[in-house]
């Protein structure tokens, strides 16, 4: 393993990409402006549901400066539903209805912001002027807005050809929950909800396409997390060979999931460029982003936990509804993540989980940082908290009694994960993570004393501490190609793009260790299909794991080549050589050396003869595909102060203990965690998309959709535990999403703790919490309504519509 001998893997190496970004020179898609480019704006539907009876674009077409207006009628063979990007796993009894959107609306509008017409003009300003002139004759239809009622028999239909709004139904079980329940000393059930939010990358999406008729080639710059698959789809749709189409995802201003989706604009813009013979550019604006880019979240859970008197989990049962929005191109990734992640780091011998996915007249749901895992964690951690309360066990104690011990790993949970393999935990140390967090936050002694003192001063302070696991680094595969160039620089090309994860540096560290250069010597190229065209993309916290290990393998191969050539050149045994300082040198005799650039030249002879089978150059390409995903884990602890008068919550301390296996660059890993926690805080307390009764979005702006700012996010403390994954040579696990996953659960527990004396028995079951919602909860509590909903929490509740 590289860690032992390596000097770069594991080090806080400042990033190679920073200088370009800090000086404003880094190229983002929006910065690309080929000469003669035309600009696109879309006319989009204001209504969430309707029948498009007619579209009059005549005055838009004749508006000065407009080059073309395209509607569905102009698209010809392109007018077909998009692909299902991620088919559902082969589960027994699976029901799945795939419905995807047309690139432009033909007759039926299923969510606000669906594109009706594409306007191409000399500037975006003029294109927007013309978009306002497009007259759409729309017959409004009743929208499906409320998830809880979407599957009701009387609900309007999102897709007429389906008997109901049911998009999918999945049931997975393990053991025998009914039997476990019958044995239990305590059965606790609650309904939880977790509402919708946006990805919130600060850069909106953008596509620039340049068709070169002379060269018969198409070049496309795209803010995508998956340039290669998108390239392949676009080539096929436009009748071009993949080699004719080059997709470039240069610097991308944040991904967080939605940029992994395949969008109609990615095909329409290149198509328009070919049609018009001009470069064509579209930059999504923030308002469009609220409708045209995918979102995440709404779920309603009816969950139940069965335990012994000692607080040991006998089983969990969960039935939930998942809002897919108007279409379901991303299959079941999000709800399956929820279903699988709910089990957490715990021993859960019996599990019965069932979900129904509903179509609604809302923007499409696809993975957003956490990708449904946070919902599962929220449900499980809340069940444990509330059960602990009934049993007289504090939150840490009840977790102590249920986390899987190190000797219980690897652990097979027996249900199927999103990567089509059984849900298995490869490695980790869950006990240590929990204890470490409890120790760092002084859970057992100092904190409780402080809390009492604060309470005596009229200050409501509380702590929350929760666990999570995160399935990361799933397949199928990624690759990397490493080339030592004659000048001695090292080039690394890989298919995964980068949206800020520091790949230019962490990948360079892996290479640097293998061939004795510094990370700054390694030039990393990502997200350009002309450089590397095999791979799937940056998602599911897999870059460092899957691509990282492919690069590691390629680097080992190049190392072998270097040693072989150097041994020949220096006439020594390869075993006597070491690679350092950009050269190969004889151990103990550093004067006997040859630099990598010279070896690269001699490895590519221009005359003479070579051995049969010789590969030219110091270059190697490798691929890596894990047998199944590796599971990272961690524990979050948060301390909050609540002003019970104003219902405002302040986070005083935030602490993350996490285990992502081998850490390539702790600085980058911590940065990922910080960002995840901030997003989680947004989920927990600030961010919520609000829809009115007519299905219109009420807060499609950054003025009213509240992303947390620097004064809302506290300093974040991190502690690393490294349990290397046995599933890959580097021992890495993903870390991109872990920061975000358990925040809401920790937050809810801490707020309840803070208010334990003022509002004993308060239960936070709905996320996002907001000051207004907390105020309502406190008020309801004072008036004797538990949970702000109804008086009797132990009685069986009405199940959500459609949930048995």
């Amino acid at each position: 393993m590289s860690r032992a001998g390596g000097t770069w893997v594991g080090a806080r190496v400042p990033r190679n990409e920073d200088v370009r970004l800090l000086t404003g020179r880094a190229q983002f898609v929006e910065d690309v402006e080929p000469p003669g480019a035309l600009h696109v704006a879309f006319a989009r539907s204001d209504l969430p549901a309707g029948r498009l009876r007619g579209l009059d674009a005549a005055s838009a077409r004749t508006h000065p400066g407009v080059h073309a207006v395209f509607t569905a009628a102009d698209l010809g063979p392109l007018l077909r539903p998009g692909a299902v990007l991620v088919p559902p796993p082969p589960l027994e009894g699976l029901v799945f209805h795939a419905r995807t959107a047309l690139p432009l609306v033909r007759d039926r509008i299923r969510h606000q912001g669906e594109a009706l017409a594409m306007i191409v003009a000399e500037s975006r300003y003029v294109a927007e002027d013309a978009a306002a002139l497009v007259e759409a004759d729309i017959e409004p239809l009743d929208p499906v807005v409320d998830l809880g009622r979407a599957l009701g028999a009387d609900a309007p239909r999102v897709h007429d050809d389906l008997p109901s709004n049911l998009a999918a139904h999945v049931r997975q079980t393990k053991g025998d929950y009914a039997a476990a329940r019958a044995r239990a000393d305590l059965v606790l059930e609650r309904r939880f909800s977790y509402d919708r939010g946006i990805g919130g990358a600060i850069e909106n999406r953008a596509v620039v396409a340049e068709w070169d008729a002379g060269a018969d080639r198409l070049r496309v710059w795209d803010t995508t997390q998956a340039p290669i698959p998108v390239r392949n789809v676009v080539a096929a749709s436009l009748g071009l060979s993949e080699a004719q189409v080059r997709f470039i995802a240069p610097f991308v201003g944040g991904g967080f999931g939605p940029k992994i989706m395949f969008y109609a604009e990615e095909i329409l813009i290149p198509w328009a460029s070919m049609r018009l013979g001009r470069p064509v550019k579209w930059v999504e604006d923030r308002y469009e982003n609220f409708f045209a880019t995918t979102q995440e979240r709404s779920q309603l859970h009816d969950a139940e936990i069965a335990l012994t008197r000692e607080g040991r989990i006998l089983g969990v049962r969960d039935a939930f509804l998942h809002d897919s929005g108007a279409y379901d191109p991303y299959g079941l990734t999000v709800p399956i993540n929820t279903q699988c992640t709910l089990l957490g780091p715990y021993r859960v011998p019996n599990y019965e989980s069932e979900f129904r996915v509903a179509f609604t007249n809302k923007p499409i749901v696809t993975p957003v940082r956490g990708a449904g895992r946070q919902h599962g964690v929220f449900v499980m951690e809340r069940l444990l908290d509330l059960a602990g309360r009934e049993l007289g066990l504090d939150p840490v104690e009840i977790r102590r009694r249920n986390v899987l011990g190190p000797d219980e790993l690897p652990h097979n949970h027996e249900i199927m994960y999103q990567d089509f393999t059984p849900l298995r935990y490869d490695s980790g140390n869950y006990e240590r993570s929990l204890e470490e967090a409890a120790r760092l936050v002084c859970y057992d002694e100092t904190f409780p004393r402080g809390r009492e003192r604060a309470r005596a001063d009229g200050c409501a302070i509380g702590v929350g501490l929760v666990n999570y696991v995160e399935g990361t680094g799933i397949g199928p595969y990624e690759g990397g190609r490493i080339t030592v160039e004659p000048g001695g620089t090292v080039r690394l090309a890989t298919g995964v793009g980068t949206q800020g994860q520091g790949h230019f540096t962490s990948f360079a560290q892996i290479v640097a260790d293998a061939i004795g250069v510094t990370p700054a010597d390694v030039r990393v190229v990502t997200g350009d299909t002309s450089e590397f065209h095999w791979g799937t993309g940056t998602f599911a916290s897999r870059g460092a794991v899957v691509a990282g290990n492919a690069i590691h393998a390629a680097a080992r191969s190049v190392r072998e080549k270097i040693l072989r050539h150097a041994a020949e050149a220096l006439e020594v045994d390869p075993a006597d050589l070491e690679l350092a300082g950009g050269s190969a040198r004889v151990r103990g005799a550093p004067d006997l050396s040859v630099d990598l650039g010279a070896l690269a030249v001699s490895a590519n002879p221009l005359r003479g003869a070579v051995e049969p089978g010789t590969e030219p150059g110091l270059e190697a390409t490798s691929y890596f595909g894990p047998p199944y995903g590796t599971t990272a884990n961690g524990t979050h602890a948060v301390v909050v102060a609540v002003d019970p008068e104003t219902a405002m919550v302040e986070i005083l301390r935030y602490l993350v203990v996490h285990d992502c296996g081998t850490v390539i660059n702790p600085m980058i890993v911590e940065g990922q965690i910080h960002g995840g926690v901030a997003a989680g805080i947004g989920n927990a307390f600030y961010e919520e998309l609000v829809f009115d009764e007519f299905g219109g979005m009420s807060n499609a702006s950054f003025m009213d959709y509240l992303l947390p700012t620097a004064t809302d996010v506290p300093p974040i403390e991190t502690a690393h535990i490294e349990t290397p994954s046995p599933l890959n040579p580097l021992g890495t696990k993903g870390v991109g999403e872990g920061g975000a996953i358990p925040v809401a659960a920790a937050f809810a527990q801490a707020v309840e703790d803070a208010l334990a004396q003022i509002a004993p028995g308060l239960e936070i079951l709905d996320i996002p919490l907001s000051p207004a919602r907390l105020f309502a909860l406190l008020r309801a509590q004072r008036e004797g309504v538990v949970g702000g909903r109804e008086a009797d929490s132990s009685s069986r509740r009405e199940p959500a519509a459609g949930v048995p």
Partner: protein
Amino acid sequence: MRIAARVNGLAWSGEVEPRLLLSDFLRSEVGLTGTHVGCEHGVCGACTVQLDGEPVRACLMFAVQVDGREVTTVEGLAEAQPGEAITVEDLHPVQRALHEAHGLQCGFCTPGILMTAEAFLRDNPTPSREEIREAVSGHLCRCTGYHNIVEGVARAAELLAADGPAAHDDDDR
């Protein structure tokens, strides 16, 4: 309308449409694409530039309004000429500090934050962490969780103090 302005110390003059936003003017007319656009309604802060040394939202001003004024963008911070290669050593202390503190990930929000931080540290050379948080609270960053941005600005204050007050005051504001 005809306007004449100075951008990063260089004169620019030409015709612009009244409705052209300052952000679009900088990006497409002047060709300085370091000023980013994330919301066009004044909230995200990505477009922040300095107008006569004061941070303003470029998406909430029109190009015609900078006639006769001086605009500084992120490209004006480091001392290199446009097109010339830049290394870490050439960076302005605020940029260098953000690099050292890992105060950027995707880097999309970064130019705006740099323009705010530079002006802020001129007014308040020895800020507390709270003051820094407040100073950058008009910027949205979805990647960093702000932790390292705050550390970076604190580090910038140190670097600037070490460089001495004169070192980076050579522009004529």
